[in-house]
C-alpha cells in the first residue's frame, strides 16, 4: 500500500462562484488507477464529486481529464505510472466546465460533425462487399483508433486560443475517411479543412500526439492532410 494525496478540482455551479481544490489523503495500491481513487472519493468521502466514466477500460473515452497537468484517461493511468505521491486531477482545458471534471463537449462534437465523419460513396452497391487491398487499408489504419475522448483537442494551445479551430480530433476523423480508397468525398473534406480555422491553425506543437491515449500519430495525420490540401494529391 502507498500513501497518496489526491487533489481534486471542484466547481459546483449552484453554490460556487469560483472553483477550488479539495484534498484527500488515502492509502492505495500502486496498481490502482486514478479512476479507482476518484470512485473511492465519490463512494466513501463525497458523493457530490462529478466526473464522466463508462467502460473504465480505455475504450469509451469518457474519463479523459488533466492528471498532474497532462491530459490522460483516468481509467488507463496507474498510480505507479505517475511516479509521485501527489496526484492532481483537473478538467480538460478549453471547454466550459459544467461541474467538477465535467466539461461541455458540444463545441468538440460540432467540429467533429463539420468534417463529414461518415462513409460517402454514391456509386451503385456492388454485389458483395467493397473490396480494399491490405495496403489501402493500412493507409488510414492509425486514425481508425480514435475514441473521441477529446484529450488531443483540449491539449492544443491553438484550440485554447480559439474555440473555432476545428481541432486535432476532427482532423483525425477526417483523415480516416479522406485516405480511405473506397470513400468519394475526400475533395469535399479537404475543402472544409482548407479554412482559416482548419488544418493551418495547427502549429506543430505536438501536445495532441503526446496526449492521445491510443498513441495515434495525430500531428502526422494533420501533416498529411495539410500536404494533401497543398498538393491536391492523396498519395
Amino acid at each position: 500500500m502507498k500513501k497518496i494525496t489526491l487533489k481534486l478540482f471542484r466547481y459546483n455551479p449552484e453554490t460556487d462562484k469560483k472553483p477550488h481544490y479539495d484534498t484527500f489523503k488515502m492509502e492505495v495500491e500502486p496498481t490502482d488507477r486514478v479512476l479507482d481513487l476518484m470512485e473511492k472519493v465519490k463512494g466513501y468521502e463525497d458523493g457530490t464529486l462529478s466526473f464522466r466514466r463508462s467502460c473504465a477500460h480505455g475504450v469509451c473515452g469518457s474519463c479523459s481529464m488533466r492528471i498532474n497537468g497532462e491530459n490522460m484517461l483516468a481509467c488507463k493511468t496507474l498510480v505507479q505510472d505517475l511516479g509521485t505521491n501527489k496526484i492532481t486531477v483537473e478538467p480538460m482545458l478549453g471547454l466550459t466546465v459544467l461541474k467538477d471534471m465535467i466539461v461541455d463537449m458540444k463545441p468538440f462534437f460540432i467540429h467533429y460533425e463539420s468534417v463529414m465523419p461518415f462513409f460517402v460513396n454514391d456509386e451503385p452497391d456492388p454485389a458483395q462487399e467493397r473490396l480494399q487491398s491490405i495496403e489501402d487499408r493500412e493507409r488510414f489504419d492509425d486514425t481508425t483508433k480514435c475514441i473521441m475522448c477529446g484529450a488531443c483537442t483540449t491539449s492544443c494551445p491553438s484550440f485554447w486560443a480559439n474555440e473555432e479551430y476545428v481541432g486535432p480530433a476532427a482532423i483525425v476523423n477526417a483523415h480516416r475517411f479522406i485516405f480511405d480508397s473506397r470513400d468519394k468525398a475526400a475533395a469535399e473534406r479537404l475543402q472544409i479543412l482548407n479554412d482559416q480555422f482548419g488544418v493551418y491553425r495547427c502549429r506543430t506543437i505536438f501536445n495532441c500526439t503526446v496526449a492521445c491515449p491510443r498513441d495515434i500519430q495525430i500531428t502526422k495525420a494533420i501533416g498529411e492532410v495539410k500536404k494533401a490540401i497543398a498538393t491536391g494529391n492523396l498519395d
Partner: protein
Amino acid sequence: MALNRKVSLFTGLKYKGGGPMWAWIMHRLSGLAMVFFVGGHIIAGFLTQQFGSEVGIAINTIYENWIFQLALFFLVIFHAVNGLRVVILDLWPALLEYQREAIWLQWLTFIPIYGLVLVVVLKDALGG
C-alpha cells in the same frame, strides 16, 4: 452558470506538453525578440545618421555589449534551427513520427553553431 472556457497564459504554461511545446513557445518569443532587435537597430541607425543623436549611440552601445550579443545570437540561431525543423516536418509528414528524435537533432545542430559563437564573442570580449 458554468465556468468560462478561457485558458489563461499561466494555466496554459502549466500544461505539461514537454519539449516540443517549449520549443514552440521559445520560437514565438524569439520571433518577437527579433522584431525588437531589428526595429531597435534601424531606429538607432536612423537617429545616429540623421541627428547624431545620443540615444542612437546609447542603443548601439547596448547592441555591441557582449552579453547582449550572446543573447541575440542564442535567440536568432534557435529561431532559425527550430524553424527549419518545423519546415522539414511540414514538407515530409512521414518524418513527423520521429518528432522526438527531431528535437534532439535540432539541439545537436544548435549546440556546435552556438558553441562557435560563444568562442568568437567571448574571445573578443574577454581576450581583447
